[in-house]
């Protein structure tokens, strides 16, 4: 009996080792361990074994079964691994083929620049406010200290609809509207489309965008204006950006300034972009003129504030090194796809 079992076991293991695939292994399993398998047959034949030998024979059968099962499992794992390896090999692809992309649109660079600006100011506690593009002369000029026949009206060649209604030449009328509502303090920005009667060329467009900022509160100073715009410039143009305030004149601010920042291309050393000066003019600003505050119903003895205005296209053209403003309005997908 013992010999028979040993021989059975040895044969089974030899068959297992020579099995070529999982099916063959299964066959062996069935042949040996299945209901009609050889080993099962031995167990079935136990009734013919004398009772005193039965435990011993049973143990031997179990040992043989365990050994076969172990071998089967071992071989199965080996085979499975081999098969997987082969499958993986077959599945090899040329990974250098180009990636598959779904059609995606691109944001207009002007919009991206605007969102970047908005993000900085929203982070600084500014609320975004809209205003009408077709505007009353009163808001666009009069309340901003630009009375009838003021030369500034000429400087900002205005598109008129009627004597009193025009296409706004700046986003500043939104300032006047917000101030007039009288909810103080004010900390707002107002981006939007503005119009001036400039013929279209590489640097001019009759329609462009500005972003206006206004802060009104007790005790706001020119120093606060400097600090705010300095912080803005570092956030927007980079940590190392320096700002320079130059005296200037705007009818609705006093004192007024133009702000230059260190050229973000050369860092201030001087390059083609900054025409060698190391500085780039970026915005106009100033302390809100007391007369403007008064006209909008705010007591200039109690409240002070500052305002600033940024030309969006200017920022966009500089930031993306776009050399012709007309590209912004042509909407050629070969242009837009670059952003």
């Amino acid at each position, binding site marked *: 009996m013992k010999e028979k079992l040993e021989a059975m076991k040895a044969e089974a293991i030899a068959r297992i080792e020579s099995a070529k695939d999982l099916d063959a292994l299964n066959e062996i399993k069935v042949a040996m361990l299945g209901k009609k398998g050889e080993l099962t047959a031995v167990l079935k034949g136990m009734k013919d074994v004398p009772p005193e030998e039965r435990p011993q024979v049973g143990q031997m059968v179990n040992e043989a079964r365990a050994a076969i099962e172990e071998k089967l499992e071992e071989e199965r794992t080996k085979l499975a691994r081999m098969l997987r390896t082969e499958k993986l090999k077959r599945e090899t692809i040329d990974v250098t083929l180009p990636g598959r992309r779904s*059609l995606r649109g691109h944001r207009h660079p002007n919009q991206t620049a605007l969102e970047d600006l908005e993000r900085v100011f929203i982070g600084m506690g500014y609320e975004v406010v809209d205003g009408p593009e077709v505007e009353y002369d009163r808001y666009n000029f009069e309340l901003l200290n630009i009375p009838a026949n003021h030369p500034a009206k000429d400087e900002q060649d205005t598109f008129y*609809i*009627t004597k009193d209604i025009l296409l706004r030449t700046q986003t500043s009328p939104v300032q006047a509207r917000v101030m007039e509502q009288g909810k103080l303090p004010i900390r707002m920005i107002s981006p939007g*489309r503005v119009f001036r009667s400039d013929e279209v060329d590489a640097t001019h467009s009759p329609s462009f965008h500005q972003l206006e900022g206004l802060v009104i509160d007790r005790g706001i100073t020119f120093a606060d204006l400097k600090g705010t715009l300095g912080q803005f410039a570092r956030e927007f143009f980079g940590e190392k950006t320096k700002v320079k305030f130059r005296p200037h004149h705007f009818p609705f601010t006093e004192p007024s300034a133009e702000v230059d920042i260190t050229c973000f291309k050369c860092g201030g050393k001087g390059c083609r972009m900054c025409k060698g000066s190391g500085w780039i003019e970026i915005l106009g600003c100033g302390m809100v003129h007391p007369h403007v505050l008064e006209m909008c119903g705010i007591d200039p003895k109690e409240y*002070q504030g500052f305002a600033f205005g940024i030309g969006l296209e200017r920022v966009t053209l500089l930031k993306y090194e776009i050399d012709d403003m007309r590209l912004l309005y042509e909407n050629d997908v070969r242009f837009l796809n670059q952003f």
Partner: protein
Amino acid sequence: MKTPLSWLKAYVPDLNVDVQEFVDRMTLSGSHVEGYEKKDKNLEKIVVGKIESMERHPDADKLVVCQVNVGTEVLQIVTGAKNVKTGDLIPLVLDGGKVAAAHGDDTEYPEGIKIKKGKLRGVESNGMMCGIEELGSSRDFYPEAPEDGVYVFQEESGVKPGDDAVKALGLDDTVVEYEITSNRVDCFSMIGMAREAAATFDKPFYPPVVSVKESGGDVNDYIRVKVEDTELCTRYCARVVKNITIGPSPKWMQDRLKAMGIRSINNLVDITNYVMEEYGQPMHAYDLKTIAGNQIVVKRAADGDTFTTLDGQERKLDADVLMICDGEKEVGIAGIMGGENSMITEDVKTVLFEAACFDGTNIRLSSKRIGLQTDASFKFTKGLDPASAYEAINRACQLVEEMGCGEVVSGIVDVYPNPAEEKVLPFEPDRYNALLGTDIPAEDMLSYFAKLGLTYHEDDQTLTIPSFRQDLGCMADLAEEVARFYGYDNIPVSLPKGEATVGKKPFHQRVNDVAREICERNGFSGGMSYSFESPKVFDKLLLPEDAKERNAIVISNPLGEDFSIMRTVSLNGILTSLATNYNRRNKIARLYELGNIYLPKSLPLTELPEEKMRLTLGMYGEGDFFDMKGVVEELLEKLGIRGVTCEPSKDIPYLHPGRQARMMKGKLELALLGQVHPETGDNYDLKTDAYVAVINMETLTMLAGFDRKYEGIAKFPASTRDLSMVMGKEMFVGQIEQVIKKNAGKMLESCELFDVYEGEQVGEGKKSVAFALSFRAKDRNLESAEVDKAVDKVLEALKNLGVELRA
């Protein structure tokens, strides 16, 4: 505004700074320097040489060999110039020096041209004699220079060999150009800029001391002045100079004018030009003998008048143009240009000088209407100080007398009926500091003010503002003056204190952001187009004559017909851009634009129009109607807008009549979309199938919500039924879907179209449509009978529409 540094130094002699420092500090004190030109930047090692002898070149007929004395030595120079002779003093560039341009060559040499010694046809030449062009100037400014040849110093120049020739010619100057802001009228003059420079560098300022040596007589015997319109002419000063001797003006005056780019004409003209630059006050000189009745009348022209200005052009006038007239006729357009009929000629004997203050706005508008802008009108438009008319005319007479150009008749006619009041402002150092955020001592402020010509009165702590500073009118103006001279860069840096505010965007902008996101996710790129367009747009879009869209706002002064109306339809921009892309052979284009249309409440406009935000999408090259519709649906879904129906339409003229629809929520129109009508496509030169959608963002904003509630994930299985139906071809699937949704009961989870078929098997004029209906209960397994009941109800309803279940 330009100033030669040499001229500024005439009033600020202690101004000894290099150009870069001058430019930087002037800019920081408010006179923004736009650029500067060093007239001698490419002139190096150029001295005065004296030709001692000349010989023929042994091997070249056209060349001569000269021995030239340059003070320290005698150099041999070979030249081809024909105009020089022994004894001439000429500018000579030495070996290693530089000149600005080449003889007979218009090329620009930004770096100049280096001159080296060498041999000309075998004979050594140690330098080059220079013509005026080689020195970077021209005969316009040096009329004594020969048309072709070497510049020869004139005897009266007093130069000697070895002198710096550049200096001798007055070319050692730098002209600085500033951007002067409109409030600083005073800075459009040499004196004004000199005052700024003196204050900036804290150097003494010496304006001209004007005193006129009069020769007797009485001006009132020569001329009477009557100003009829004292609003348009606030001051009129007149003086008379007799026994005029016309001749050249002195070199210093010529040099200063030259540096400003003004050609010297003669002493009289030069004086008026010089004073205009010096004081910023235009002047005019009349030949007194042409002034009829010895009378000047300042009055408005009559509508329809014409007048010939001294450039020989006939000008059309109107009643808003101010004229200078004599006893009989018009002799000049006030502040703009004199008349041909009173022009100064070489044989003038007696001159009438005019210096007046005209209303800047009127001059600006008149000059625009007439179409004539002059140096004088430019100065007047800024709104001059009435005081400068008086000062300038006296200065001119002083120069006339000093230069021996004539004899000044005693007295001045000064018509100034309403003299400007002296402006006095309180001195409020604390308020200036509070506005600036500074701590500047009061005495420092007073020193800045003193430099600017403001007078402080200690007793009542006030400041008298000089008349030339019309821009100073309130506390903030004075604070700016303090800030300018304290230095903007010295003002500290702080951040606004006070209560914290929340940064945010309005809701509609969040909705717009979502719209952009969805568009881009679907392949549409952001575009931008103009708000104004051509009225032809309506025809291109095939809108009928009575379409309400044709009621557009018209710009009264547009850039041209093509930009003359405010858009009432948003499509033109996108269609134009699609065509641009198509005609540039871009295979696929998908564009969107978020922009306003402008709808007038009435025309002509009496109040502001409604500005409606439209999201416009357009595409060609890939995709069809349903791709476009999918984008609109995705946007609506993202905005939480449900219960939207798609209603087929036929009435949108610019869309394909069988491929257009409106997306509606009840009675609210959310969007329209469709394929572009081929005729519209042709009108835009867009000869391919294109699809567009126009979405009303205001309506979407009104309906949009971002609140979402978790509804749980289904625990019980769904029960599905496929319905395949046959119906008339014209019947809309949307209608079937509505019937299903309406009748299937609340267990209906979804109803999805999976097939539409037309063909032989369903018969002529019919189509087959198949939906998959899915039913589910949240709390239990659905009984088959329940589902059957719901489906039966649906079928019943469909039957009423003539829809049959397909066998």
